[in-house]
């Protein structure tokens, strides 16, 4: 099992592609790594791409909500991209409200959303 998920910085965006089967310590590590990176240098957006995941349980989904909340407090907008239909159906039927984080169909849409937001502001 890997013990860390890399965080890529592309201009003022942070990109995290989650490929590994997530376990709790990995999620906590990722959360603190993201916050440290935001503290080091601010970012306008954070994209968590989960297209490689086929399971997302409520614990991990809640961790994403918390990450998005913390990032927001540090001035960063978070988008979770690439959720599979199977995960979306499972979380919804379980009664998990996905209102806690913004989502996009895929990585490209997430990046488009973050750059559109930028030109709106200008």
């Amino acid at each position, binding site marked *: 099992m890997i013990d860390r998920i890399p965080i890529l910085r592309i201009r003022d965006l942070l990109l995290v592609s989650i490929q590994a089967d997530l376990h*709790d310590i990995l999620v906590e590590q990722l959360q603190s790594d993201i916050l440290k990176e935001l503290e080091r240098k601010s970012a306008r957006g954070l994209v968590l791409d989960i297209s490689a995941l086929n399971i997302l349980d409520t614990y991990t989904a809640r961790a994403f909500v918390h990450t998005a909340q913390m990032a927001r407090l540090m001035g960063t907008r978070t988008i979770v991209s690439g959720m599979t239909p199977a995960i979306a159906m499972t979380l919804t039927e379980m009664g998990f409200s996905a209102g806690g984080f913004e989502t996009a169909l895929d990585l490209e849409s997430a990046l488009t959303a973050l750059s559109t937001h930028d030109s709106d502001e200008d």
Partner: protein
Amino acid sequence: MLGSRIDSDIPPKLVAALEANVSVPPKLRQEIMSLSLQNREQIENLAASIVRHISLFAGTENILPILTKLDQATNGVLSLVPRDDKMRVDNEASLVLARRSAITLAAKLGFGPVERTKVATAVSELARNIVMYAKAGEVRLTVVTNARIGLAIEARDNGPGIPDIDKVLSGGFRSKTGLGMGLRGVKNIAQEFAVQSAPGQGTRVRAVFYLSMR
């Protein structure tokens, strides 16, 4: 069990063994012939396709006998016959393994991607509750073959137990860590759900998922 040696004879042997029992449409034949033995997800998808095909064209009661023949013909390399599983759960790594086992077993029972995700998510929630609250326990995955084919998950521990289980299940109790959310979630996605728990007496949860042939 996946053998380390790759045998290119496996796909044709599998097609022949399957053809001896049911007709094999071109699409399924293609799926078998393009099989790569290193790709776990591909093997899982194929296992599910085969089970659904047998079920539709030979009947549910013939699934296990035919899968047994397929395993014999391919020296058990693909391990297509679904088997009960029992795992000790006491840390992060065992939680991940329990999820993986659940996905694999669900695939061998013909569950589609959505159902596989549901089963694995349920295992994840129940196993996590064990690790968080009881430190250690056991997760059993059992093949159900009565009128319908299903997968039963049983999670047992001798931990502190849940004082007011009804309140937890009705949503009247919210833990910081999400015990209630997980249990309620499993109850919502499983077709059968039962929980036994009392303070000092540990917890037993049983959730059953049935194969839908949609």
